[in-house]
């Protein structure tokens, strides 16, 4: 530790103003502050500060993602081998098989994304922001496992540059960058992002099926997955999205630490349940999804993952407490609405969140306006008196 500190102090002058590598200062700072919380002291304002900072928050989110990630790695192996007759693999074999499939995606996502973040920090001369720590892990977790790495690279580049840096970087973006990457991938490489061939590794080869429950239902077929399997996540899907149990563990961490908004999580479940109930009540002879039990909607597809980790992204969500209720509720509503009645997209969570990301500032505007009006009414009442 001391040795590391001494080495850093030794090279630090080169990166400071007037140093040889002055321009690379932000990159040095990014690495230094990763290793050590800096010795900065308060200069103005309050002399004491809360121990929390953005790094701590972002890493906590990453920790909350880990249960779903690890389960997803095992599930990659399980979904593949369980369809091969006679194969009886141990837990570890399945996990390692999945991990080896997943790690390249994580490495590419972090490598490319952080590379761009560092480059922007250097060119703009600001600190490296931590936002990508979460985005970089989210992106591979919401992709199909066999998604080609070069496509992933291009999706990440698009998401970071157009989805985030174009708006000014972390904290300024309108859309959730991870979902921007996914939306870009879906519309650019549709064949690799949807259908019944992509959700299990090597699906399509040797007669393996890679169909999700939603894909099955959209085709008007019955699903054979039990509710228990839905909850546990023993089903095909994006790497991180399948296990509701693991996602709930993540949700518990986020809610307990106070990082994610419970208002958004609860209201989105309420919204989705109401729309699901409505479709159940209406029923349909031509669209089986109308009759799919409303509460099972919450267990399948990307709903749980989206509500816990994507809808609650504080930057792209509504920012007022009242606004969060409305924003979450509408995400739940649109997610199920798109699922059930939109014929082109079997899953609606991504679109629902992106749509509400766009409308979040509008929601906030009206919420804040009510505060402004209250203030003006008070003044008018006073002037009349």
């Amino acid at each position: 530790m001391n040795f590391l500190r001494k080495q850093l102090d030794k090279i630090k002058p080169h990166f400071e103003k007037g140093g040889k590598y002055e321009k690379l200062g932000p990159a040095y700072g990014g690495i230094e502050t990763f290793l050590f919380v800096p010795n900065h002291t308060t200069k103005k304002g309050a002399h004491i500060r809360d121990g929390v900072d953005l790094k701590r928050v972002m890493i906590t989110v990453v920790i909350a993602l880990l249960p779903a990630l690890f389960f997803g790695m095992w599930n990659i192996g399980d979904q593949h081998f369980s369809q091969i007759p006679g194969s009886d693999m141990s837990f570890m074999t399945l996990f390692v098989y999945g991990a080896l499939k997943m790690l390249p995606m994580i490495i590419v996502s972090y490598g490319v994304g952080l590379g761009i973040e560092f480059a922007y920090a250097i060119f703009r001369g600001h600190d490296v922001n931590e936002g990508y720590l979460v985005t970089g892990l989210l992106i591979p977790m919401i992709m199909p496992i066999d998604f080609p790495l070069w496509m992933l690279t291009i999706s990440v580049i698009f998401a970071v540059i157009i989805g985030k840096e174009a708006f000014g970087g972390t904290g300024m973006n309108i859309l959730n960058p991870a979902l921007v990457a996914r939306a870009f991938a879906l519309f650019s490489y549709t064949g690799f992002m949807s259908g019944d061939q992509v959700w299990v590794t090597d699906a399509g080869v040797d007669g393996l099926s890679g169909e999700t429950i939603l894909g099955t239902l959209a085709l008007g077929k019955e699903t054979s997955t039990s509710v228990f399997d839905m909850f546990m996540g023993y089903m095909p899907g994006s790497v991180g999205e399948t296990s509701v149990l693991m996602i709930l563990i993540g949700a518990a961490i986020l809610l307990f630490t106070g990082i994610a908004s419970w208002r958004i999580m609860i209201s989105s479940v309420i919204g989705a349940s109401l729309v699901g109930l409505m479709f159940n009540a209406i029923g349909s002879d031509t669209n089986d999804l109308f009759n799919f039990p409303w509460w099972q909607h919450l267990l399948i597809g990307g709903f749980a993952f989206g509500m816990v980790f994507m809808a609650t992204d504080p930057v792209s969500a509504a920012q007022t407490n009242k606004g969060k209720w409305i924003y979450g509720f509408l995400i739940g509503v649109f997610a199920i609405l798109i699922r059930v009645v939109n014929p082109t997209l079997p899953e609606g969570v991504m679109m629902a969140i992106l749509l509400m990301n766009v409308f979040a500032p509008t929601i906030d505007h009206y919420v804040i306006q009510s505060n402004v009006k209250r203030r003006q009414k008070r003044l008018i009442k006073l002037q009349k008196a």
Partner: protein
Amino acid sequence: MSTDISIKKGLNIKLKGRAEQKLSTVNRSKTFAINPSHFHGIIPKLLVKIGDKVQAGDPVFYAKQNEQIKFTSPVSGEISEIVRGAKRKILSVKIKADKSDVFKDFGVKTPSKMATPQIKELLLESGCWALIKQRPYDIIANPDDIPKSIFISAYATAPLAASHAFTLSGKEKEFQAGIDALSKLTDGKVHLSVDGNLASFFDDVSGVTIHKVTGKHPAGNVGVQISKVDPINAGDRIWVVNPQDVAAIGALFLTGKVESDRIVALAGSQVQTPQYYKITQGSQISDIVNGKLNATKSRIISGNPLTGTAVNGKDSIGFYDDVISVLPEGDHYTFFGWVPFIGNNKLSMSRTFFSWLTPNKEYDLDTNFNGEGRAFVMTGEMEKVLPIDVYPMQLLKAAMIDDIEKMENLGIYEVAPEDFALIDFISTSKIEAQDIIRKGLDLMIKEVG
């Protein structure tokens, strides 16, 4: 007559080194100072030159904005130095004090028998006017205004804050006289907020509306109480006075002399025996703290750790401050200090530390920034510590882009920088909220007035 105010939002920061309720007197400083910087926005015009003799209560400078507002010497002595900074800005007027004070006599008066103009006149002449501040803007009150009410908060919730019941014990008569004088300055009421869980002499003060306040910091902030009782609208003026200053105003009427003595708490984990001291306004910090601090590197703050000003030994204590906090300087690196759930010696409103398990623990916080400044990312955290009906993040953003109309719509008149001190503290992105609000208020003064 009393009403209850119960504040739900907020955060109590418990720090090591709370002052014990024991009073000593510090040795009299040789030199006293009056610093114009203690009076926000005041541009001083000198009335004295080096070598002039002054009595306690003689004017030293007046405000360029309003010639009636005078600032007087707390002691008698000789003007020894006028410290100037860039562009010849006056930083400090130093007075070499006599062994004992000679007071200018303003005559013994009974405030209840005086007319408002005479009370104003006396307060202005004696320099006591500077004790009265106004909301909005958190600046010295304009004597030409008539405030819609006057607020006094005798409930201290800030970390390491001095207990008003203790600092005012034995000054009950002066306090009442001060109230009598102040109540003549407004057409409305004088509101006195007291600790709802503590009986004290404040309960017997007459001529005021008493509010029993309970809740976490910033429940004791006068701005929070105003927002619950009599919110400020555009164009409104409310005046606020600190409890000890009310007694000082009272003493002026009862004795005819300026009362420059104050009781301050010397507190914080770097103080060997935290307790209360009787000092005279304008005292040098070194005269108050010398020999009482731990040897390790520390920061001396005139005021509480959330809103105070960092000072060195040669500075003088802030005009409005009733506490000197001394905390360890935090210029150290922490290896992987951002790893969640580790480092539980730090206080945090988020539960990314396990410190929430010990809500009654007193913390030894230092001045480390605990991270780096970032853009706004987390939402909803500021609202948890601001019990005023405004949207803090949106107001801060409006202030950052100098949007006057938006600031007005979002309620800039209802807040003072001190109300945003906890936002400084809890902000994940380390937003300098107090500084932003102060600049926003200054812009409003310039543009709206």
